[in-house]
């Protein structure tokens, strides 16, 4: 299940979407809007998320497929918000469900690592006076993805 949406989501509802008593382990990654500083040390008041939806859906499907192929998962759910988000709001949710925890945990980390560098979303910091600042990609995210190179088919 993949969703790109303007609206927030509820963890219990999303858990129900992947629930089954064949699952014993669920790993969740939840990303939220952190009270961050701009490049010029100004406090942000929220973020704006731009998306090339048609492409992002294809890219998310591909990542989900890799997760399902490389780990023993019963379910893999990915939700990503777009548009304007306030501080503390939910941005992204990944849930992986498996019989055993090792698969669920590792696959969930893979999905969020891959999403960070390969899916057509762009973040902007928002400031009080309707000012925007483009958020730059972090080297860390590219480096973190390298760890999966030998694991993923």
């Amino acid at each position: 299940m993949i969703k790109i949406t303007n609206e927030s989501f509820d963890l219990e509802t999303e858990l129900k979407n992947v629930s089954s008593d064949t699952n014993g382990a669920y790993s969740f990654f939840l990303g939220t809007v952190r009270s961050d500083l701009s490049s010029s040390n100004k406090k942000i008041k929220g973020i704006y998320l731009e998306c090339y939806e048609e492409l992002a859906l294809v890219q998310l499907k591909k990542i989900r497929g890799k997760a399902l192929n490389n780990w023993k998962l019963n379910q893999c759910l990915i939700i990503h918000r777009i548009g304007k988000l306030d501080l503390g709001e939910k941005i992204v949710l990944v849930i992986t469900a498996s019989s055993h925890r090792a698969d669920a945990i590792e696959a969930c980390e893979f999905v969020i690592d891959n999403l960070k560098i390969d899916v057509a979303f762009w973040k902007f910091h928002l400031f009080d006076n309707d000012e925007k600042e483009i958020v730059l990609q972090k080297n860390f995210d590219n480096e973190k993805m390298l760890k999966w190179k030998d694991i993923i088919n």
Partner: protein
Amino acid sequence: MNITLKYFSWIRVKLKKSHDLIEFNQTISFKELKNNLISKDAIYQEIFEDKSVKFFLNLKEIDDENQILNNGDILAFLPPVTGG
């Protein structure tokens, strides 16, 4: 033939538009389109010189500059992504 250009992130901000519909009298390659755009507006020079920008033709990344564009194609300009 018509080709839609889609701009994202700093490219959209810099060009002050999210898309363009451009017309050509004949089929052209990605490389020819690139040169055509650069000749019309110097901003494109910066975009095409930025090695971190990716180009997606109909949702597939372009890996050959000589790829031919067809009527109705959608070409997207993608800076490094920052979702999640």
